């Protein structure tokens, strides 16, 4: 219950602060939440599950309508060297600090934002343009709107 409220709060805040048009931002965010992936993958996603297009539209519509009461933003997280990734709901975090804490526990390693160093893994993310960026460079709410995928990079070696 508490988690759900937190999620809704973040989502509302993001919408209010950056996109004045309610209907357009609503549709955009819904699609973003439903398909957290880069553009080149969009065509492939439309083919799964293998159901008739009318039914797929119906299910998509239901997801759009349910967005308000079941907000989550699952993204994929990979660590270099580990072949199996994880799915993480970013809406349950209040900011970068809690995200890093959770990831450090999940992957059993020490992770930081910002500059690379020789001791810590560095957290990076793929944004909606397909570019890989350092986590922490923009406000949390903006990060939630642009992040598509996370990657934990190895400590830099000299």
């Amino acid at each position: 219950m508490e988690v759900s409220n937190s999620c809704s709060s973040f989502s509302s805040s993001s919408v209010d602060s950056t996109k004045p048009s309610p209907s357009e931002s609503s549709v955009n965010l819904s699609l973003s939440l439903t398909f957290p992936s880069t553009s080149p993958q969009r065509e492939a996603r439309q083919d799964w599950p293998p159901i008739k297009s009318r039914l797929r539209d119906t299910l998509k519509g239901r997801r759009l309508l349910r967005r308000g009461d079941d907000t989550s933003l699952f993204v994929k997280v990979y660590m270099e060297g580990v072949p199996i990734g994880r799915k993480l709901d970013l809406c349950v975090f209040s900011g970068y600090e809690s995200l890093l804490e959770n990831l450090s526990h999940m992957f059993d390693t020490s992770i930081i934002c910002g500059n690379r160093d020789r001791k810590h893994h560095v957290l990076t993310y793929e944004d909606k343009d397909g570019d890989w960026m350092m986590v922490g460079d923009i406000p949390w709410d903006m990060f939630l709107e642009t992040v598509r995928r996370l990657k934990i990079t190895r400590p830099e070696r000299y």
Partner: protein
Amino acid sequence: MNSFEPQSQDSLQRRFHQDNSTTQQPRDTTTPFIPKPASKNHNNSNSSSGAAGRSFQGFGLNVEDDLVSSVVPPVTVVLEGRSICQRISLDKHGSYQSLASALRQMFVDGADSTDDLDLSNAIPGHLIAYEDMENDLLLAGDLTWKDFVRVAKRIRILPVKGNTRQVKRNE
């Protein structure tokens, strides 16, 4: 930016109208490890969305679940190192625990049912992972069960190797 075609918009409007006359669906939790027993009534499964909407009014059935379960195919289960795969219908299970039990019976000889079974110990020495619609390999258990059923295309059972860092689950 995606824009809907007029036909899709009409479909959305009809769906919206129908939804207004049906009961609110229960809220999904985001905790992946809590088993949620599903009580699906397959006798009423109906692929026609119009008829399904009308006939299910007032019954409290989860229409979307029935629609999905009637069209989602079984997924392939691959045990690393074995050349012959198996199939499993995820819509016949209501939770990760149920899936773990089925996998154990599939792959562990002489398996008994145990009370504390979950994905992490379903098959000793192995991790349960899946490939999603983008062919990415992910550890099973992070999503809600319903989301997992929707996106999992293939299940891979991989050995936990000594030289690979153990991936911890959220607790």
